[in-house]
């Protein structure tokens, strides 16, 4: 009954608000590009305050081209233009706005060799990195000064991060890699953990972007784990892949492609898992909030306003889940990296006598 009344109240509110909006007739303009919220951009989105275009760096035919922003590139460059404007006649105006942000050569409309432009995901990747530096460089100074090494750790920051560092060293690195080599890989695991954690957290902030929701970023991280496993792999690791011990020769040949595939699926799974988890969280939040507008279209604005509290609460719930997932995914990526490294570097000649 109570909610019904609230629904009616909302309906009244809407009769004033929504009518105005439909008068403006800008439904197309207000449409939210859901995937666009997740994918990478060549600008930082601070809507409604505006956007900040990021520098474009293009490598083509043996030389680098720098532009302060996409707008500058389109208006100033003789070599490149926005794909949207390619071939159009009003190109010389000098007051063009970027449209597709995809850069093509002016002469034939083909893509340049390499687009090294700074993107929003890269900026937030760097921000996460900067945050790791801002937190851990003073912390290491503190440790070197004696606090924490000779005495107990002091202060919330040191205590909080020491717990995480010790957890990664003792529960992730030591447990999965073994006492002989774990200290060598701990710095890598620490770097990966805190980078992913902070990147995930940036996705929870207003206007923030989580770089881990980009498959390119997760692919690089997975690639680092893959390289770590391959470069520091033991002899046993290669033996297990190309000549599996303890099975008949025909089986050995059958196992070879399987093991090779396993070699590649591990980093691939790492990459996809992190990316999918982080991207899906954001898509889920937009989808749930979008339900309000879908209801508005399907059942009328009254129902949409009346049920909006459900979707807002659900969004809050998903948001909290996302905060949890930020931790879990950073942990999962780190522990799986440690596990794969541990499997590759282990000398398990006597353990696998099967």
């Amino acid at each position, binding site marked *: 009954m109570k909610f019904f009344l609230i629904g009616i109240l909302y309906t009244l509110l809407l009769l004033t608000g929504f009518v105005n909006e439909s008068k403006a007739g800008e439904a197309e303009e207000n449409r939210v590009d859901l995937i666009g919220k997740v994918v990478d951009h060549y600008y930082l989105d601070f809507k409604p305050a505006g956007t900040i275009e990021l520098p474009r760096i293009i490598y083509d035919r043996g030389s680098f081209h720098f532009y302060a922003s996409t707008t500058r590139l389109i208006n100033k460059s003789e070599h490149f233009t926005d794909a949207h404007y390619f071939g159009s006649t009003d190109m010389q105006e000098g007051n063009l706005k970027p449209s*597709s*942000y*995809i850069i093509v050569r002016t002469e034939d409309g083909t893509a340049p060799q390499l687009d090294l432009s700074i993107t929003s995901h890269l900026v937030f990747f760097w921000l996460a990195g900067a945050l790791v530096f801002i937190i851990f460089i003073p912390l*290491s100074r503190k440790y070197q000064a004696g606090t924490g090494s*000779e005495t107990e750790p002091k202060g919330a920051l040191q205590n909080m991060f020491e717990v995480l560092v010790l957890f990664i060293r003792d529960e992730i690195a030591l447990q999965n890699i073994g006492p002989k080599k774990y200290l060598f890989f701990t710095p890598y695991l620490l770097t990966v953990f805190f980078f992913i954690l902070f990147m995930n957290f940036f996705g929870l902030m207003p206007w923030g972007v989580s770089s881990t929701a980009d498959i*390119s970023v997760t692919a690089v991280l997975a690639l680092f784990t893959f390289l770590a496993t391959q470069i520091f792999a033991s002899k046993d690791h290669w033996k297990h892949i190309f000549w599996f011990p303890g099975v008949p020769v025909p089986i050995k040949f059958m196992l070879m492609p399987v093991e090779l595939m396993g070699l590649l699926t591990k980093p691939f799974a790492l990459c996809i898992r992190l990316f999918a988890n982080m991207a899906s969280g954001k898509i889920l939040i937009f989808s749930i909030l979008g339900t309000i507008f879908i209801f508005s279209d399907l059942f009328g604005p009254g129902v949409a306003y009346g049920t909006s509290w459900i979707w807002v609460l659900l969004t809050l719930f998903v948001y909290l889940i996302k905060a949890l997932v930020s931790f879990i995914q950073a942990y999962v990526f780190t522990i799986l990296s440690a596990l794969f490294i541990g499997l590759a570097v282990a000398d398990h000649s006597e353990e696998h006598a099967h």
Partner: protein
Amino acid sequence: MNPVLAQGLLDVDFGLVIWVAITFALFMFLLTKFAWKPILKALDDREKAIKDSLEDAEKAKSEAEQISTENEKALKEIEAISHKIRKEAQEEADKIRADRLEKAKADSELLLEQTRIAIEQEKKQAMSELREEVSRLAVEAASRILNEEIDEKRAKSIVDRFIKDINGVR
């Protein structure tokens, strides 16, 4: 071209890959050098210090325990020794007392004996004196009675013989 579909979710941006790879490697290198290594070293140092001090404490405790048991043992030994000494002293004292007692007894007996002997001699002497006196008196009495000058010497020998006989009877 539709701007919405300009970039899909699964598109890999190679420019971004290169940037991320280079900067991540750089960040990792710098962080390892300036953050992780010092922090891990500090934690390791602290753990070692704690472990060492715990071991030291354990050692000190066992040492203290050892010292205490040694002390106890020494105390017991000393007690035993003192007990022994006391016992020996007691025995010595008993022995000395017994010796003294015995010696005193012997002395007293000796004294008694000597006294007895002395008494005996006195008695003997007294007897012999008495005998002599008696014999002289007898001789005198006899000579007076007889009024006769008998050889005093011969009479004396007769009396002596007579007394001896008496002695022999006695």
